[in-house]
């Protein structure tokens, strides 16, 4: 019973999902209410996790569930991400007439799944969490069901994701078969690098995870799904599941398989290099901003995976710092995207940004800052994110990874510059609407300021993250 205290946030969020379902069904026209409630519940969950304190480190339910600084930090990121997504997408949903009670409830469901995933210390618990979040995401991707593209993206995501889940499950069963346990700690005790079948298991699991985090060569779903889904869902896709997937990457590699680092290190390096280069090169030709963001997020995932390659605490921390800053930048970018609205129609190609700076100086300045930060140009936050990654990579003398990574930032800079070029150098088009919701404005301003002023107190974030010690 004592254990239940620690999983209070999870219990609370499950109860609130049920409550919201009942509320939504029995009260007519309650979508507004459900929306507000779900944001409130998410914030309360966040506070509950915070209350649990970041320095906790305990395992529950016979070691199958773990609450430590990593899980608490990542859960807070997930929940904050979810809450911001909900609050800035209201107007968008209303315009597309998909402002329904299911939307926040599905988001809460997938967040619950992610929280379970983040805290899992056991293959079965992990898989249950993963499926819960994936199922909710399938529905979300096709949420705008009247639109062909949205349904298509949902179906695509479902088919490919189910395939990867199958691979992942097969990997899990191999691991179980050869180590005799599903618990991460027990697996790590019974593992040694002579066992080649175990390596098979690791590879299968990594493939499944790489799919979830959309690392090359398992990224194919990302551009289509990002483009097809409603923008508010794309925003969710681009941010929140990445946090959970990265956590489980860290947990998998560094708890059960830390002793066989020589077996998986090359895989991670490959995934990372492939994602960085492919993300940079493939984005160049894109015309649709959402597709471009998909490729850019593939590239960014490559960088955060690079932090996992060295096998040090420093590396893990740098990766977490990276994903945190990446989230802030993406919120800024998507806020801009959600502001590109004219006469109740949203625009999402790069050409639509043409000459934006003439009519919307503030919006374009924020976008300029965000894009330069995504490109990793100092003194913006994105530079520091990359800096920490390469610092930890070079510490382990992995120069090849570092140099390839930095060179691909130059390639990536090209397509970010291309957007800036369109905004600042090209001829102006019609004005966009300026009646944005307050939340959207707050989200854009705060993310821009965070990015711009990060260099004044660069060690604050690192200090928080440095509490996370896995090894």
């Amino acid at each position, binding site marked *: 019973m004592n254990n239940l205290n620690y999983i209070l946030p999870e219990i609370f969020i499950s109860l609130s999902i049920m409550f919201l379902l009942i509320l939504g069904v029995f009260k007519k026209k309650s979508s507004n209410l459900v929306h507000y409630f779900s944001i409130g519940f998410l914030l309360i969950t966040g506070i509950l996790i915070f209350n649990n304190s970041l320095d906790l480190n305990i395992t529950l339910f016979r070691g199958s569930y773990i609450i430590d600084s990593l899980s608490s930090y990542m859960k807070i990121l997930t929940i904050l991400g979810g809450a911001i997504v909900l609050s800035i997408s209201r107007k968008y949903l209303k315009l597309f007439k998909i402002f329904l009670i299911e939307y926040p409830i599905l988001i809460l469901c997938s967040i619950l799944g992610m929280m379970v995933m983040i805290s899992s210390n056991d293959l079965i618990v992990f898989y249950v969490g993963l499926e819960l979040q994936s199922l909710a995401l399938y529905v979300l991707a096709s949420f705008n069901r009247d639109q062909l593209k949205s349904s298509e993206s949902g179906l695509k995501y479902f088919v490919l994701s189910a395939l990867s889940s199958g691979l992942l499950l097969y990997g899990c069963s191999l691991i179980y078969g050869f180590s005799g346990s599903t618990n991460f700690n027990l697996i790590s005790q019974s593992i040694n690098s002579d066992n080649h079948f175990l390596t098979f298991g690791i590879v299968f699991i990594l493939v499944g995870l790489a799919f979830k985090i959309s690392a090359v060569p398992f990224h194919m779903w990302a551009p289509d799904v990002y483009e097809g889904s409603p923008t508010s869902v794309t925003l969710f896709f681009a941010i929140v599941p990445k946090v959970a997937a990265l956590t489980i990457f860290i947990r998998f590699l560094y708890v059960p398989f830390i002793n066989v680092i020589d077996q998986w290190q090359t895989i991670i390096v490959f995934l990372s290099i492939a994602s960085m280069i492919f993300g940079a090169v493939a984005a160049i030709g894109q015309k649709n901003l959402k597709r471009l963001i998909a490729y850019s997020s593939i590239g960014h995932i490559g960088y955060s995976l690079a932090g996992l390659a060295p096998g040090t605490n420093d590396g893990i921390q740098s990766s977490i710092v990276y994903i945190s800053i990446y989230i802030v930048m993406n919120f800024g970018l998507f806020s801009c995207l959600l502001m590109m609205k004219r006469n109740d129609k949203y625009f999402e190609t790069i050409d639509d940004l043409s000459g934006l700076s003439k009519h919307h100086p503030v919006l374009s300045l924020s976008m300029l800052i965000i894009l330069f930060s995504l490109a990793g140009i100092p*003194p913006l936050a994105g530079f520091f994110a990359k800096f920490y990654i390469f610092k930890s990579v070079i510490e382990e003398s992995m120069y090849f990874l570092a*140099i390839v990574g930095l060179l691909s930032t130059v390639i990536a800079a090209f397509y970010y510059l291309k957007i800036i070029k369109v905004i600042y150098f090209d001829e102006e088009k019609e004005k966009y609407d300026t009646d944005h919701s307050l939340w959207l404005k707050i989200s854009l301003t705060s993310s821009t300021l965070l990015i711009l002023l990060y260099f004044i107190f660069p060690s604050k974030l690192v200090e928080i993250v440095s509490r996370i010690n896995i090894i």
Partner: protein
Amino acid sequence: MDFPILSSLILLPSIGALFLLFSKDQSSNTGKYVALFTSYVNFLISIYLWFLFDPNSSNFQFVEDREWLKGFINYKVGIDGISILFIILTTFVTPLCIISVNNTIKNRLRDFLIAILVMESFMLGVFCSLDLVIFYLFFEAGLIPMFLIIGIWGGARRVYSAFKFFLYTLLGSVLMLVAIISIYWITGTTDVIKLYEIGIDYKYQNLLWLAFFSSFAVKTPMWPVHTWLPDAHVEAPTAGSVLLAAILLKMAGYGFIRFSLGLFPLASETFTPLVYILSLIAIIYTSLVALMQEDMKKLIAYSSVAHMGFVTLGIFTITQQGIEGSIIQMLSHGFVAAALFFCVGVVYDRMHSRLIATYGGLVSVMPKYAILLMVFTLAAIGLPGTTGFIGEFLILIGAFKDNFLVAVIASLGVILGAAYMLWLYRRVVFGELVNNNLLKIKDLDNSEKFILWSLAIPILFFGFYPELLNNTIEISVNDLIENYNFNLNMYTPEVK
């Protein structure tokens, strides 16, 4: 701790920019006055700094050391005799750029001023920083405003040039970042003063030197990675070209002195032939290319490459004269190139053409302009009595000390330099007044006169009285060379 004079020097332009950001009007004069005021206050501060500066000490002065990235990197700034001159050059040229916007910048004046002021902050940061990471931060950050200056206010092919500028420089710089982080893991610090004391192990020096070189060579720019410069110069607005030529290029020369020589003396010794060859190619080849140019700005851009070739040559002679000459040559080029670009800007604003063929016979319609252009042309050639002479002369003395052949080839460059500059002058100013549109052209207005005279005065003053510059840099350069030779002698037996 004393008043943080260097930090305020760096921050002040940005604060001015922040003020401008909140002003609504794009094209008001108030914005210009605010920008002008901030930049001139900054100039006065830097002059005051020069007075406070003690030239008899080889230590870094006005050092500020603050915790920044905890336990890893400190925000550390400080100056010695070398950096103070570059700081003054920066604060001197920036206000002139702001004055020049009168005629050149028609749209989005406020944004342009903001970009210039932010740029000034970053440039000052480069010359002040005493930590490799801080240096890198400022060095790279300068790309953002410059990219916008070329891209928004540039000429017809501005997009291509802006991209080329940005990507070339970024590509060069990323390797430097790898090197900087490696230095941190090898020695445990990125603090330049500490690194001078500890030194870096010989076996790493060559690779690190090359990584730094890749960045500085692009920025200098050295042959064969100079191709971004003519494009950037031609397309940038006048003020942008001026900043680019007068200050941005100097960052690399400064970097060579401060980091390549200071941190990797053994590698510098190893790679001296490489630098010599590239510099000589730059001097001869780009001078020949300059001879063939139809476009005035392009011609001056190529002459910049040639002049910077002299600078790198002088630095790597590693003699007192060579390095002092390089520093003076950099300052001189800062004044002269800035002045020449302003001069091109003056006629471009009137005729909207940069082609040499458009002009001819300007002397009869623009006599004042002709006189000032003569001064700058002669300074670019290196006529005695101008700063150009002092710089080139000292560099050549240094080169003769080190390698006779190199010095002889470099001297040829001086002759070529005279050829293309005088020919340019002849074609633009003398000759028949063929183009009838030129009859209506007006001579210099007041702000242009102010800009050009304020550039002509230091060129002549320091040309006759170089002692003032010499006094400031002598001890620092001497110290650098002693340190260099000390390292060389310490390691040489081991290496052999």
